[in-house]
């Protein structure tokens, strides 16, 4: 008897910090994820299947581009609402959250912020309903952490641009109707070689999007290339005003914010599954949960999770007040993705042999976290972003400060 004040799933009552409206959005996303996605997740991963119907279902519930204003098909929500949706989707499978990250942050966000009014009206409502699917091409085969060195080019010609080059590791590209592609633009003027954004529609001559095969992580999320051979892009499909890496980084900042929240769901799910498992399993005559080594593993997990939760909430609060800086996002993305990967690995270990089968789902999360730790800026690259902010010395380029 006695009042329960220790909630082992939410030790610092972090969900109380979330506004009533955002909590309702969280509940709706949780209900959808648990009832509609969870039953498909294991098979989707095993068979590398992304059920295209999921895009429409999510669109119908308003989970795509939720922070985009209503007039363009979004719900005009807070960014925290976007965060809590990511947390619920990731709890099931980060592959589904990746789909939403790309559609919302990497495709709808740049069209909304950098697009013309015509572009917004043409694409945003259909992206919001899931009628069309978008992808985002920044990474190239030879340029990942250093996108500024990209070689994809856009040459100015009469009435538009001619694009050549290839992007790889592109989430959704095999199923995308619309590709947001970042390329170096050459118009023969002062801005020669500056990075600009282009909207390429499926069906454009010279465009192909072959699938990346044999992925061992994020298997339910289709990943591919964007290959452009003399693709003609009309003037009206260039993002008008944005120049340089600011454009792609603004999108990444948004998506990384979602990841900060998403991996909280992954870590919580792995911890809860590990806890339930060790409470139920007996070895050497006693429940595993009664062993000291097991208890400290659980204690470390909830300590990390509590930090992750509070960091996500505070970052959301700052972002909703328009005060979140890229360094804040880097810190939280690095911390939360790294911690989630670690928790998934420890949980996998605690489940013993059962941790090796997909049925217990922990190894599924563990494999996904390898991607999340790498994409949207690797763990170490975010460390360098922070290092630069702290010291004001960049260390991306070895001896780059010598001159």
């Amino acid at each position, binding site marked *: *008897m*006695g*009042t*329960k*004040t220790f*909630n*082992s799933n939410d030790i610092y009552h972090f969900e109380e910090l979330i506004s*009533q*409206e955002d909590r*309702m*959005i969280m*509940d*709706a996303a949780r*209900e*959808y994820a648990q009832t509609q996605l969870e039953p498909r997740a294991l098979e989707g991963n095993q068979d590398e299947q992304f059920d295209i119907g999921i895009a429409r279902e999510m669109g*119908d*519930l*308003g*989970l795509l581009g*939720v922070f985009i204003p*209503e007039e363009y098909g979004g*719900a*005009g*929500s807070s960014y925290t*609402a976007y965060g809590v*949706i990511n947390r619920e989707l990731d709890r099931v499978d980060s592959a589904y959250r990746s789909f939403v990250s790309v559609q919302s942050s990497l495709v709808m966000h740049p069209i909304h912020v950098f697009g013309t009014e015509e572009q917004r009206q043409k694409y945003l409502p259909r992206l919001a309903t899931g009628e069309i699917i978008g992808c985002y091409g920044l990474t190239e085969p030879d340029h990942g952490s250093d996108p500024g060195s990209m070689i994809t080019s856009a040459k100015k010609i009469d009435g538009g641009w001619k694009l050549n080059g290839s992007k790889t590791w592109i989430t959704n590209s095999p199923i995308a109707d619309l590709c947001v592609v970042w390329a170096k633009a050459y118009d023969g003027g002062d801005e020669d070689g500056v990075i600009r954004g282009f909207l390429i529609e499926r069906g454009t001559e010279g465009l192909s999007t072959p699938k990346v095969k044999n992925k061992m992580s994020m298997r339910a999320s289709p990943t591919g290339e964007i290959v452009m051979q003399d693709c003609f892009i009309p003037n009206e499909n260039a993002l008008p005003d944005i120049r340089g890496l600011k454009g792609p980084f603004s999108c990444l900042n948004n998506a990384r914010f979602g990841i900060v929240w998403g991996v909280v769901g992954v870590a919580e799910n792995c911890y809860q599954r590990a806890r339930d498992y060790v*409470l139920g399993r007996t070895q050497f005559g006693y429940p595993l949960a009664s062993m000291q080594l097991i208890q400290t593993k659980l204690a470390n997990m909830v300590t990390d999770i509590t930090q992750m939760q509070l960091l996500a909430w505070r970052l959301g609060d700052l972002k909703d007040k328009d005060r979140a800086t890229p360094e804040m996002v880097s810190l939280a993305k690095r911390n939360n993705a790294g911690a989630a990967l670690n928790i998934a690995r420890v949980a996998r270990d605690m489940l013993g042999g059962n941790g090796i089968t997909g049925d217990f789902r922990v190894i599924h999360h563990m494999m996904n976290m390898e991607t999340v730790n790498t994409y949207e800026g690797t763990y170490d690259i975010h460390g360098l972003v922070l290092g630069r902010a702290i010291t004001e010395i960049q260390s991306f380029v070895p001896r780059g400060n010598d001159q």
Partner: protein
Amino acid sequence: MNILVCLKQILDPEVPVRDFAIDGSGLQADPNCANQMTNIFCENALETALQLKDAHGGKITVLSFGPDSVKDSLRKGLAMKANEAFMVLNNTGHQPDSAATAKVLAKAIGKMEPFDLVLTGREAGDWGAGQTGGLLAEELGLPYSAFVDEIEPEGEDRLILRQQTDSGWNKISAPKPVVASITNSDHNLPRIPKTRDIILANRKPLTSWSLEEVGISEDELAAEQQKARIKLLSIPEGKSDCEFIEGDSLEDKIDNLAERIVAIARSV
């Protein structure tokens, strides 16, 4: 058609056994041991009403009696597309029984515009008494049908209520206004609210009345509660054991198993 749906907020009935707790009084569940949520059968009732409205037009009002937190259930009701929300605030700290609840709901309904149809859930996932619908009909002096899973209009003045039975269903024709308690079926799985409707729901007004305002005093409510009282609540202790039955052949094992079952049955 003007429909009222009564929503009860309860502790999440799916709370894991090890998290469930009884509060210091020993008379009720600890409200902090699990999340508060809308009783599922009440949501089935709301879904039934929403489908009726989608097909034939009309207006849906949701009503709840409970502590301040029932606003969450009412807002969810609005997000699912109910038109208006009302509550009677219970700040006594006690959970009322079905009779007291029915009395309060009837008083509140008396203050509102007339309804053609009043719905409750079949029962609530906390106590499972299944009494409120019938008692409410009694308080309102209206006809009542239980275990209903589908409703259709019959002309202007009547409704057809489909009532589940053990072997099929009854179709009952009832004059408006009527009270029905709703059970779950394949057709009334509650819809998940859309994000945009959630945001709109949070901008809608929600009327909260005190007990006094609906015309019942805390003393009257307490007196009502005295009729059937809980003396003590406790959590049953579950024990499980695993025993392997041996035997040389399959037949032996079956015989030994049967003997063991008989022995256990005798000992309890």
